[in-house]
């Protein structure tokens, strides 16, 4: 695709621990296009956060290390560029919102100062100009009574408001790509909706590409253009939002969809996926979903399945389809 602005090729991020090597991201490849909303979906421990942190080289090292792969931003490999160049890109062209606003905001500084710090650093504005820009940013994300509230400290804000502060800070430089790691997870349903509206707006008005990471497949249906389902550090399935919800192929994807509680299921038992999420230390030779798969075949245990195209942009890593 010519409008792919971020291309990840065979990314491998491992954590070297006392108990063994955790293959958190195990040869993951995908592309993010201009103005698209790409959702990376998977449960705890599937490697989605590790993937996101790898993009901006934010992996704690030691014990983590990006052992292989390429991360091409407009053709430039972020894994091999200088730290200076990375700093120019990070926060500026590619911004990130982390999982827990509680721990991402500094409790001893007021929120206005924290956003202004970003603005001054990346936009090189003087104090007054930075202040006005900060006010504008906070208004854009729907924070009420901005000039008063910017003097407040993080603990004086609710979860939803803190999340808006994080988004305002991330948007300060009008980034081309926004990586959001579980941005609505800790929030109530009505607040989730408000935050998702902000992301939708960003996409439509500024053509920002969004890499949206979540374990909640339900949230994703309303915001995604394309979805990547991850499991055990690997990609299980990729497709448009319609591909994934209308024609899920991978048994894991099917399992995830079937276990969502829904008001239309009224008291019927849910069909959970049997078993547990695997350890990523010394993963098996074959398909990593094999032990929990209801439809496994002998080859599944022996060899890791390659991704095959099912139709158009819809690909799946499963022997049922190759």
């Amino acid at each position: 695709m010519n409008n792919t602005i971020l291309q990840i090729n065979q990314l491998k991020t491992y954590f070297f621990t006392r108990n063994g090597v955790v293959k958190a991201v195990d040869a993951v490849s995908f592309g993010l296009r201009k103005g698209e909303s790409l959702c990376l979906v998977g449960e705890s421990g599937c490697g989605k956060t590790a993937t996101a942190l790898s993009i901006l080289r934010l992996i704690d090292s030691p014990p983590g290390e990006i052992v292989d792969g390429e991360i091409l931003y407009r053709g430039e490999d972020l894994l091999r560029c200088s730290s200076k160049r990375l700093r120019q890109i990070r926060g500026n062209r590619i911004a990130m919102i982390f999982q827990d606003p509680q721990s991402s905001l500094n409790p001893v500084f007021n929120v206005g100062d924290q956003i202004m710090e970003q603005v001054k650093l990346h936009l090189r504005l003087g104090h007054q100009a930075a202040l006005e820009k900060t006010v504008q940013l906070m208004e854009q994300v729907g924070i009420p009574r901005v000039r008063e509230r910017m003097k407040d400290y993080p603990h004086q804000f609710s979860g939803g408001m803190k999340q808006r502060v994080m988004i305002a800070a991330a948007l300060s430089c009008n980034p081309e790509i926004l990586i959001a790691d579980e941005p609505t997870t800790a929030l109530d349903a009505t607040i989730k909706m408000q935050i998702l509206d902000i992301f939708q707006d960003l996409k439509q008005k500024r053509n920002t590409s969004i890499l949206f990471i979540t374990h909640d497949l339900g949230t994703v249906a309303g915001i995604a253009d394309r979805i990547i389902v991850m499991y055990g550090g690997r990609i299980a399935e990729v497709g448009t939002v319609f591909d994934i919800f209308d024609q899920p192929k991978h048994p894991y994807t099917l399992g995830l969809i079937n276990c969502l509680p829904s008001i239309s299921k009224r008291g019927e038992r849910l069909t959970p996926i049997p078993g547990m999420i695997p350890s990523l230390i010394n993963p098996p030779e074959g398909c990593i979903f094999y032990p929990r798969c209801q439809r496994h075949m002998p080859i599944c245990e022996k060899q890791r399945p390659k991704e095959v195209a099912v139709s158009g942009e819809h690909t799946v890593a499963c022997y049922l389809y190759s």
Partner: protein
Amino acid sequence: MKQKLLEVENLKKYYPVTVGLLSRHVADVKAVDGVSFYITEGETLGLVGESGCGKSSLGRTLLRLEEPTAGRVLYKGSDIMRWDKKQLKEWRKETQIVFQDPQSSLDPRMTIGDSIGEALLIHGVGTEKERLERVEELLTRVGLEPRHATRYPHELSGGQKQRIGIARALAVNPKLIVADEPVSALDVSVQAQILNLVMDLQQELGLAYLFIAHDLAVIGQVSDRIAVMYLGQIIELADKAELLNNPFHPYTQALLSAIPLPDPHHKRKKVSLTGEVPSPVTPPSGCRFHTRCPKVMKICSEETPALRPLAKDHSVSCHLYK
């Protein structure tokens, strides 16, 4: 005709706000402000509301884990507020609680077996051998294995810890379990396993639940009747099907419209709520929801509407309905 197990009448729980060195009592956080409902044997009453609405306080107060500020709680017709320590302790065998955060509700220095069996020990149930057998039986019932009895909490996953919380609650054969956000901290596939367990146990043991959650889809999955809470008060109460198909209160309608639908084709009519939940220290006058209500009228800020039955088994507190 099934017996009413629990009847709550005009329950209030206020937390004092104190200021200064001498702790002057200046105001109250009106966490629970006049709540009434009942639960019959073997039924699940779902209590739904967003962060800060008082649902957790309600759960703890009706079990006298915290002393109420006012109101009555009747268990099988008897006023629990009048009971002495001995009667209260006996009653603890009939009513148990499962907490939200499995991490912090299990003593990290006790083995799983000891945690589950602690209540049996306290109530002097059985010999040591009998208690051990009961612990093993409970572990199996919640889908774990007897060998887990010698493990410590940190060795288990979130889902497993939550199962331990349930096993512990079941140890004394209760009639009623207050489940306070039991699945909020879990991934969807684990959530599905736990919800199934909760429903299966109810069928097997004839348990009644007060199931507290902020996720209406989860509540809809498990409940017989649903109570919607906002800022310390119940604003709507009905049979599940009735509430989900025919919500009267604008807040309930907003909550329903905010449930993320795993269906990309469905463009739901959005009832986006503006603003945030007001402070429970100074709740708005009249109907507490009036500051955010899309259908607000003049009377709403002047007079608090009473919770009145509108249709069979369907009560609502809203001036729209006379």
